[in-house]
């Protein structure tokens, strides 16, 4: 049991990295990785939303959608749940914890269209995970996202100071950096327990 739980988190974060291996959340991965500080804040917000979204959608799917036989509605229901959840989280943080809101708040609306969140909830359903497994998988995946985006941001802060051939400036060099990171992360697929 314990081993399975660790495997879910490590698997989500390293072996099956959501950005570098499954290409989910590329928009924000490339868009908000210019500075380390911003990317760490986005990572924090994603960890929060993804874990809560996994929990809520798992309960909803297993106890409402599946028993009623309307599991084909999952895409519509999940995207609405995520959008609503992000709104609620934003309002809650604004009222209860202004400090965290200051750090994360501005990134929360962006997360609604982050395909990694919808992706992980749909993967949980596809893999027939129970409640605890879903939450752990969501947490692990979000951890992987944060790791990838913080690493890319720190690489980009260094790239900015280098003399890069003109055609490669901007997006291409960032994509090449991402490719090298992806190669490095492929090494984790050899991990076994």
């Amino acid at each position, binding site marked *: 049991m314990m081993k399975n739980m660790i495997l879910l988190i490590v698997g989500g974060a390293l072996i099956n990295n959501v950005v570098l291996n499954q290409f989910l959340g590329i*928009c924000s991965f490339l*868009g908000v990785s210019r500075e380390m500080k911003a990317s760490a804040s986005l990572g924090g917000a994603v960890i929060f939303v993804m874990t809560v979204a996994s929990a809520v959608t798992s309960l909803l799917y297993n106890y409402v959608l599946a028993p009623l036989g309307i599991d*084909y509605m999952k895409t519509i229901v999940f995207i609405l749940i995520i959008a609503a959840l992000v709104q609620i989280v934003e309002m809650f943080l604004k009222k209860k914890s202004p400090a965290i809101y200051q750090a994360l708040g501005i990134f929360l609306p*962006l997360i609604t269209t982050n395909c990694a969140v919808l992706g992980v909830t749909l*993967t949980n359903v596809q893999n027939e995970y129970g409640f605890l497994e879903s939450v752990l998988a969501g947490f692990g995946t979000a951890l992987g996202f944060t790791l990838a985006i913080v690493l890319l941001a720190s690489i980009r802060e260094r790239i900015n100071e280098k003399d890069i051939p003109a055609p490669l*400036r901007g*997006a291409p060099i960032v994509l090449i950096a991402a490719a090298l990171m*992806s*190669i490095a992360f*492929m090494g984790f697929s050899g991990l076994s327990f």
Partner: protein
Amino acid sequence: MNKYIERLYNGIIKENPTLILMLGMCPTLAVSTRAMNGIGMGLSTTAVLILSNIVISMLRKIIPDQVRLPAYIVIVASLVTVTELLIEAYLPSLYSALGIYIPLIVVNCIILGRAEAYANKNTVMLSAMDGLGMGIGFTVALTLAGMLRELLGNGTLFGLQVFPESWEPVGIFVQPPGAFLVIALFIAIMNAIGIKTRQRQLVESDGCDMGCAGCAMASECRKAEKKLPSDTAEGGPEL
């Protein structure tokens, strides 16, 4: 030029969603392992895009402005569910190849972006043509990426052997890193021959990064950028 033809030209060449606007990068990177997958994904997205443009254009005077984004998301999600069920029923091999990326068409920036930027201001016919043009442009870009990756990584093209058996394929190109490399190559070539991608123009105007250009959430994105304490924002070749 006829304004309907102009929409097609705009979508395929002038504002190609993937290569020029840099929207919808997730599916572009993920499903371009084979040329056939690229075509399948491109056509599925095209179908959703045309239908969502038509429906949103028809409802553009009915949907109140404040709730338009949730309304668009519901419309797109319904259309995607229909498409997913149809693919599952009639093209099971494509369904298993594309997997989770079919339901994820919902969060493809191209679709919400076109709804927001075009369909909610224009007539039904023009919106349909806009969807068709953008869809073909997306399909072309995906297929090109898929062909290059399949050729280098597998030695085949649309499943047919191109290189002789003795040629050792470069396996990395069908692995995840190959996707990043191929797209980086495309953009670098376009930079080298002087085609300006939208993302570069945007840096000059308002500083939003790639990916969210024209996306429905772009205004939030810019707000996020501006609110940041920008101690490292200045200087350096930026994205």
